[in-house]
């Protein structure tokens, strides 16, 4: 690497160079970007091993500020669609992704091998991306769903929804939230939730809400990989060693009572399906049954004949009724954000 001789002061690359369309207050960035003209280089040099990149001034922008993930996307709600119901629906889809993403991310550095550690982190990242878009869409449709934060807080709406709602305000199904068990437990949970999600997103591509349709079209491609991954591991564990099969069967037995809930319809889902905006999960039951049947058969596993975990007074995860596991998970997930509601990162 060669650097041009330059006696001028190092260029400032901080908040004064943020997008002018999205002005950022001074001091928002956590650190100033490294100065590429410094002779001793910086810790980032190793990342830029290609000669056509090193010294490329415009590349020095590693500090990133908050941004609107829907910048430039038309988030106008169709005239005849109830905006608050649309927001509630987006929270349901978004919270499923958010909570499952967090459970998967808990495997970071703990998976059985490096490849699966990376695979689970990749899947978690895809789901977090979907969650971010869906929570941002909920906030754009109905700003009143966003928890109030202190004046001057830089926390964007989707982060406020992720980090400043209590368990009772989350709308995810309970299957997404129960605490991690062993790897087989994660495989079974991911298989069922990815199967339902792929079937729902596949139909949501035709949503009358163009934002939901676009999020779904991207999600279909991603969740296809997630479902295949989980399906292959399900069969591998089921047909592997005596121990792997024992663990898989135990996971199936433990989780199956929770597998009915994602197929039950909540009134918001029904209303949004009727409006041509959402999907009634009851509609995907046959497809989900067929896919799960295929995996169970390939693994030589009988479909458990167990009763679904009941709600309380008819309320389940979609109503904000959760297991204790979600509160514990949120306590860890939200603690830093809640400690610094006006924090700038």
């Amino acid at each position: 690497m060669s650097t041009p001789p330059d006696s001028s002061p190092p260029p400032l690359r901080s908040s004064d160079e943020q997008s002018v369309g999205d002005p950022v207050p001074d001091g928002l960035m956590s650190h100033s970007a490294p100065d590429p003209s410094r002779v001793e280089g910086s810790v980032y040099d190793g990342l830029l091993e290609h000669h056509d990149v090193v010294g490329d001034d415009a590349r020095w922008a590693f500090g990133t500020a908050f941004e609107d993930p829907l910048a430039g996307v038309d988030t106008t709600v169709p005239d005849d669609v109830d905006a608050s119901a649309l927001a509630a629906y987006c929270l349901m889809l978004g919270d499923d992704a958010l909570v499952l993403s967090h459970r998967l991310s808990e495997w970071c550095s703990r998976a059985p091998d490096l490849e699966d550690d990376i695979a689970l982190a990749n899947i978690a990242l895809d789901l977090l991306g979907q969650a971010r878009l869906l929570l941002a869409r909920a906030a754009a449709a109905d700003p009143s769903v966003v928890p109030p934060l202190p004046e001057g807080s830089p926390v964007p709406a989707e982060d406020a929804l992720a980090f400043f709602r209590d368990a009772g305000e989350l709308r995810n199904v309970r299957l997404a939230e129960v605490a991690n068990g062993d790897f087989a437990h994660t495989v079974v949970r991911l298989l069922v939730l990815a199967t339902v999600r792929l079937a729902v997103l596949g139909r949501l591509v035709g949503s009358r809400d163009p934002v939901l349709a676009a999020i779904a079209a991207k999600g279909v491609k991603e969740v296809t990989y997630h479902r295949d991954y989980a399906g292959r591991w399900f069969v591998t564990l089921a047909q592997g060693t005596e121990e792997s099969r024992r663990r898989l069967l135990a996971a199936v037995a433990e989780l199956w009572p929770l597998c009915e809930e994602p197929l039950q319809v909540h009134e918001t889902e029904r209303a949004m399906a009727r409006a041509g905006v959402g999907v009634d999960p009851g509609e995907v039951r046959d497809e989900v049954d067929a896919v799960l049947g295929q995996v169970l058969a390939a693994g030589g596993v009988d479909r458990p004949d167990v009763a679904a975990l009941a709600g309380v007074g008819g309320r389940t995860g979609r109503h904000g009724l959760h297991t204790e596991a979600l509160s514990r998970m949120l306590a860890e997930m939200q603690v830093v954000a809640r400690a610094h509601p006006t924090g700038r990162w």
Partner: protein
Amino acid sequence: MTATAPSSPSTGSGQARIWDLASSVPDPSTGSGQARIWDLASSVPDPEMPMLTLADLGVLRGVREHDGQVVVTITPTYSGCPALATMRDDLVHRLRDAGYAARVEVALSPAWSSDWITERGRRALRDHGLSAPGPAPRAPAGGPVALDLGPTRRRLSCPRCEAADVALVSEFGPTACTAIYRCRSCLEPFEHVKEI
């Protein structure tokens, strides 16, 4: 820095949409302002695969001028792609350095496809030891996506030694868009950009 304006679609019908968008940009030989903006924006490298420009990767969707400001449209490769904010900042800086006030917008639809990686981008990937994606799978319109429980089959060759005897290590690689392979001939691992 060389920057090419979109010229001809290279592979696959999946590129039709992006070239439609890009076709509103004048030929750079005319020297018009918008062509220069396109050239500047299309020369910005991808943060995670810097051998590719954003145009080569197919995430750069268009440039336009609005109220005296340059508006650049990009699309994420994957929903959770952490590089998007860096792309945004790099574009704004590149254009700012050239004297343009710029902002970046996101286009979610149509969703990015690996088919949009240009022929030049595919060559750059291979030149840097990455395997370029094959044609993206096409889901039957409106129908369910078929479950695939078998090993993923791709006809690849090692980007280092060109041997065809390669093995999939994992469908999920160090970035959201790559899978990890190993060459059984030269024994080197390599990344393959996944088809989506």
